[in-house]
């Protein structure tokens, strides 16, 4: 059975098993098949030396322009620090009701905050971020429910507090979206 799919495109180095875990989590949450791809670009073109960060708007547009005709949604995965002009940093962003989103691993590692590294936390946080940005591509906005994956998170502690699942309301909204494969 050919299910519509979601493509996760990694840019830069990611551990294979790490990516497979992310892929499984997305598949489980959105009930779509998930493909993993590697992207090859020169990230230096997106680097802003004044900010010492990578331009998230430009990266998003880049990923959006990539040809994946068989994919319903695409999420670009990065492990560099990304920003948008108005904010000091972002974990990720997406086109609301669009095709594309991006997510960065950079600010999810404990070492950034002077704490001993923990790969389990890192993986969990990144899964949530990817699922969150995908939710935006399906038209879901931020949710006030504390544990919903669609809850807005500005710090890693906020990410840790939420589950990697949609709450019932968001699930119901997702299933009403016309482009959601499992819509009712």
């Amino acid at each position, binding site marked *: 059975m050919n299910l519509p799919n979601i493509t996760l495109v990694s840019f830069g180095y990611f551990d294979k098993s790490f990516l497979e875990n992310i892929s499984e989590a997305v598949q489980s949450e959105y009930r779509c098949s998930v493909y993993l791809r590697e992207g090859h670009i020169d990230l230096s073109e997106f680097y802003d030396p004044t900010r010492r960060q990578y331009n998230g*708007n430009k990266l998003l547009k880049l990923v959006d322009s990539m040809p994946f005709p068989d994919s319903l949604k695409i999420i670009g995965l990065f492990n560099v620090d990304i*920003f*948008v*002009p*108005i*904010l*000091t*940093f*972002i974990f990720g*962003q*997406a*086109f*609301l009701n669009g095709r594309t989103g991006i997510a960065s691993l950079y600010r999810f590692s404990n070492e950034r905050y002077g704490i001993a590294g923990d790969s389990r936390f890192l993986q969990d946080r990144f899964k949530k971020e990817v699922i969150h940005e995908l939710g*935006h591509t399906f038209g879901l*906005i*931020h949710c006030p429910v504390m544990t919903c994956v669609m809850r*807005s998170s*500005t*710090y890693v502690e906020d990410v840790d507090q939420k589950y990697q699942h949609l709450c019932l309301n968001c699930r119901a909204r997702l299933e009403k979206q016309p482009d959601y494969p499992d819509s009712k």
Partner: protein
Amino acid sequence: MARKISILIVDDEESVRDSLYNWFLEDGFRVECAENAKKALTILESGQFDIVLADIKMPGMDGLEMLRRIKSLRSESIVIVMTAFATVDTAVKALKDGAFDYVTKPFDPDDLTHLIRNATKQISLADENETLKKKMISLENVEDLIGNSEAMKNLLREVENVAQTNSSVIITGESGTGKELVARAIHANSPRRFFPFVSVHCGALTESLLESELFGHEKGAFTGAMYNRKGRFEMADSGSIFLDEIATISSKMQVELLRVLESKTFIRVGGNKEISSDFRVICATNKDLKNMVEKGIFREDLFYRLNVVNIHIPPLRERIGDIPLLVDYFINKYCTSMNKPPATIDPAALKRLQEFNFPGNIRELENMIERAIVVGDGKKIGLKDLPLEKSFVSNTAESLEDFEKGFILQILNKYSWNISRTAKALKVDRVTLYNKIRKYELKPEN
């Protein structure tokens, strides 16, 4: 808060507009963008936005000038000013010109969230305030003025019309018709409703006490004046003052009152400092003021100063159709206050009430119902519970003589045939009363 908050983003940089647009969209706001102040003002003219997030530095009109224009159009607008180059000077200018906040780009995402959350809270409070105001209007409206009769409907229309004005009002009507209630309804429906409603019962005070009550006094103004005291005119500033039984005030007080009404200034008793107060006057009387003017008892100039609008409340006997509603209202009121289960009224008792003359009008009816609930069995008010059983004055009296006979008998029974007290109540002398008793062959019933 049910409705979607709307945000207008004004910045000449496309990347800033796009980022903020996405950010706010994901948060569920309604968002629009403008690349300059001129376009933003055009958008604002055709629709309202709850929050405007504007850059200071823009080509053409800058953000501060735009802020001033937005505030002049709609002072309650929330405008957040942002800049990449913060200075104390521009921050102070922006806040002085009415900016809600002044922020530096780029923001920490948490700061942006807090900023918008604070702004949203402000909007929510303003919305809640509006809703409460509307609720207060409907609660304070005319719920205590009970009645479906044409007379009551006309009265309510008059209240509605006069409430919105600042005109002085004289409310006339017999004792117990609800003149103070009407005065309160006028105030509660007026733009002054959030300010005091001050009531003065002119008939209950001597001239000197009334003067002190109305104008206040300074410490030591007279024996017993141990403190400075604000007068009722001062307390009613921005609100309404209700002068009940206005016909009872002395000639001297009439002169004083006229002066205050014309100048809206006065001096406290024993004081020398002129105080001004902006109040609206509502008066009430059960007397015929015009007749008093003709007899020279009430000043004509004061009468015309007060009687810009006259609202007359008809006596209860002229709106007997409202009696069932009033009875239900009072039964409910007193059963609730006495913690008794709701009572009903026997149809025969209700019919008798509608035939009763009610010289004391609604106050008398209210007293009857209260008494009936206290002394009755609590379930149903019957004829035996109302002081109408043995003697009442029927509105079906065929002639003036029948009416007089019934009325005198009623009062005699009320005072247990005490001639002196009955004569005093009827405002006749004992000889006249004895003559009436003989004429109508009245006898005590026991």
